[in-house]
Each structure stands twice: as C-alpha cells, then as structure tokens.
C-alpha cells in the first residue's frame, strides 16, 4: 500500500530525473548549436542565391568526370601538388604517432 503510493509519487520524479540527467551535460551544447543553426538558416533563407535558370542537362553524357579531370590538371594543379605533400606529411605524422613505444 505504502509502497504503491511511493511508486506513484516517484515514477514521474524518476522520469524527470533521467530527463534532467540526460540534458544537464548537453544543455549548453544544445543551446549553442541551436543558436548557430538558427543564425545560419535565417541568413540562408534571406539570401537571394545566384543560380542559373536551368541546371544544364546533358542527356547524352551525364558525367562531368572529364571536366573535373581537366580542371585538376590545368587550373588547379597547384592545390593538387600541395595535396601530395599533405598526404605525405599526414602519412608520416600518422605512422609516427600510431607506432608503439616512443623511443626505441
């Protein structure tokens, strides 16, 4: 009898507590993320984006691989080359950091 009363009293409390425990460490993160999202979304929807009338539909060949390939080796060859150094150095850094036992 007493037990029932207690459980009736405390079940909503338990729920609330668990909700509270879920939110407490996350609440600041949530607020900040929502603030950020709201700011971005408002700005996005109040912006008139420049866009072409109709997305070009090349029925014969849907692929733009060729265009990208040409660009990579003409206009944007410098970033491509820098990327090679990036890959090398991150490879080196990753292997060094992941290897066991520092000094041996």
């Amino acid at each position, binding site marked *: 009898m007493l037990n029932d009363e207690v459980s009736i009293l405390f079940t909503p409390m338990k729920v609330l507590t668990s909700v509270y425990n879920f939110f407490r460490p996350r609440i600041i993160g949530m607020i900040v993320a929502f603030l950020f999202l709201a700011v971005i979304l408002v700005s996005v929807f109040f*912006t008139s*984006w420049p866009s072409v009338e109709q997305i070009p539909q090349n029925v014969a060949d849907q692929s733009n691989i060729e265009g990208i390939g040409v660009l990579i080796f003409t206009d944007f060859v*410098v*970033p491509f080359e820098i990327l090679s150094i990036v890959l090398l150095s991150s490879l*080196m850094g990753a292997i060094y950091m992941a290897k066991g036992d520092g000094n041996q």
Partner: protein
Amino acid sequence: MDLMLLAPELTLAVTGLAVLLIGLFLPVGAKKMLGYLASLGILVALALTVSSLGTEATMFNDTLSIDALSQFFKIVFLVVALLFAIASIKYTEGNSHTEEFFSLGVFATIGMMFVASANDIMVLFIAFELASLATYALAGFEKSNQKSLEAAMKYFMIGSLSAALLLFGISFIYGMTGTTSIPAIAAGAGNLVTNPIGLVAVVLLVAGFGFKIALVPFHMWAPDTYQGSPSVVSSLLAAGSKKMGIVAAFKVFIVALIALQAEWQMVFAILAVLTMTYGNVVALSQTSVKRMLAYSSLAQAGYITMAFVVLTPMALGGGILYALSHGFMKAGAFIATAAVVYMVLSENRDVEDPDHLDNFKGLGKRMPVTALSMTIFVFALAGIPLTAGYMSKFVLFSSTIQAGFVWLAVIAILNSALSLYYYARVVKYMYFIPTDAGKVSEPLPYTIALVIAVIGVLAIGFWSEPFVYWAMEAAKVLIPGGM
C-alpha cells in the same frame, strides 16, 4: 611563367624528402646531420627568396602570385623555420625519429609559404591545412609525455573544427561569387554585401583564421598547446604558424572581401580589444614561462589585429612589420625557454614543470648568453625602445591615432604598459633572485639560434629604415591606392 620563382618551395620539398630518405639509412648517432641538412635547405631557400626580391608575377593560371607581400611573409616563415631547425638540432639529439621531426617541420614551412603566395582560396585552404596537419604531429612529438600528447590532441581537435568552419565559410563565398580566385571574388563581392550570408561567411572565416592567429575566443587551444608541446615546436607555432593566419586574413579580407569592410572591421575591432586585454591580464598570474609567453602572444596578436581595424597603408605596414618583429622575438623567447628546459631536464629527467619560473632563478649567472637574449626578447616584446618591438609598436600605434582610432590606441598603449609587469618578472627571476646551482654550459645550437634572433631584434630596432620601407612596400600590395 618563371619556375625559378617557385625554387624556394621546391628546394624545401626536396630537402624534406631528402631528410626523410637519408634518415632511413643512418644510425641514431649520426642523425644529427639531418638537422644540419634541413637548416642548409632552409638557408638555401631563404637565399633564393631574397635573390628574387622585387619580382612580381602570377603563375599557374593566376593561382599563385609572387609580390612584395608574399615575399615578405615567405622570408618571415623561412627565418622562423631556420631558427626552429637550428635549435632543434640539439633537441632531437639521440632521438631515432629525427627524420620525421625535420621533414614535418620543413613541410609545414612549405604550407606557410604557399599560403603567403596563394591567389586562390582553394590553394590557400589546402596550404593552410598542410601547415596544420604537419604541425599536429610535431606538437605531439614526445608521444610518451602526457602533456605533449594532450597539447597535440587539443590542437588537432580545435584545428579540425576550425578547418570545418573555414571550409563552410569558403563554400558560402564560392556560392555567392561562383569562383575561388581572390581577384575574381573581389570583383564579384557585390552580392555578398547585400545579403545576410555575407556576414555569416565573414565571421566563419574570422573563426577559421582566428584559430591560427589565436584571437579570443578562438584561442583556447593556444596556451595549452604552447605549454605542452616541445618548446622548439612552440616557437614554430607561435612565431610561424600564427603569421600564416595573419597573412591569410590579409589576403582574404583586405584583398578579396574589401566590399564587406564595414562588417569585418567591426569584428576585428571587438576581437582585437578582447584579445589584447585578455592575453595581458591572464598572463600576469602565470608561473609557467611557456604559458606566459603563450598569453603574451595572444596580446601581440591583438596588437597586430589592430591593422585590420585601422586599415591605412601605414597601419598595414606597421602590422606587417610587427609580424616580422614578433617572429624574431617570440621564436627567440621560446628557444631560450627551450634551452632552459633542456638544461633542467638534463640535470634531472623527472622534473614536473621544466619551464616553471623557478627554474629561471639565477639564470643570469648559470646561462649568461641565454639569460641576456631572453632579457632582450622580453624587453622587445614589452616595447622598450631600440628593439624591434618598440619600432613596430610605434609605427602601428601612431598610425592608429592618426587614423582617428584614439580609443583603440589608448587601450593598446595601456595594455602594453601592463604587459611590462610580467615580462619584468622574468628578468627579475633571471638576474635578481639568486640560486645555489652552478654555471652550466650552454648548448651551441640553441646559442646560435638565439644570437640570430637577437641580431634580428636589434637590427630592426636600430636600423629600421629598410625594414619599415620593405613592410610599407608589402602593404601597398594590399591597398594599391596608396595613402
């Protein structure tokens, strides 16, 4: 297109690869020569850059541009890298991974140099990432030391967050202008001004670059990372990588997004005041010298940021000159700290805080050259006359007043007066507080690096004319109109 203009970068790339490959075949004892090799490569690159001074060209379909600004910053980066490499010779002694250390350092320098000469946001972003990725591993180089690892982790996490913010911002710029080329963005920025997304993009970009420059509130990784990383790496981060953020911001904001001037001027005004005040006030109560230097470099970043607010050619010249001076001063101060840390650790391996202020007691007697150079660096950072710090502050502050930003100059001058307190404390510990410990021999590589930095600091202080002129030339690239 003259490929010789790319020679410094190519030299460095070859040096980095050569260090890596040769290191594979050397026994641990002989790996010392890798440091010499890397220093030599950087020196050659420096010579090549200096020899091509004054040329102007664009290369590779306008994705790279060589002009006074990029040359100036390339030289800043190379000088810092040189100091870093020389000082690291002693630091890496006896380490079996010397080759990784030096080639990562050299690759990071390449990244910084490409940022300086980028004329396309894509190049700029990827080079920016190159400099970041290479230094992540450097910051965690002592991977069995928890502090170093923690420094690397924080640097990496906040770094990748900033990279994401930066890329997100760039995507908006691209969306509104339909191009990634910096001059073309400047031409088509009209859309950005009239739409709210322009402001969002500006703030996202400020956050991305502010991470590198360490502006409040994007600075929080900086004190931890500078304190935890090996001191020589801190010198590269504080003196080199920070300047990369500044030159990137110069290019993106002043050249590409000049149409949004009103917005980002205000952002930078707020951040400059916050950054210099926060940095100076928090530095007052630090007991770790590296952490103190980290906060002081926040403050210095705040002063440099004033150039964005004032935006006259003279202020920009002052900011650019400050970047050079700060390179010498901060790199020197960190290397001096590195020498002390080395000394402390070689006496006792298990010291908790080798860079604690207490270890600087009586340094004037124990390590006279290091102590004297440290004194010069901190006085230069405080802006005592006849040093580089004073000259750059003078040019920057007087241009600020001249442009009518008296309130900003007052805040900056008050701040720089405040900063003297914690700098003088280091000097007090070094010269006024005696210690029982005896004199120790100072490692030669550290001493050489310190002497180079001292010469740089004093040269800019005494014989400022060429440097000021040179910085003004670089500033003209940003604002071609002149006065």
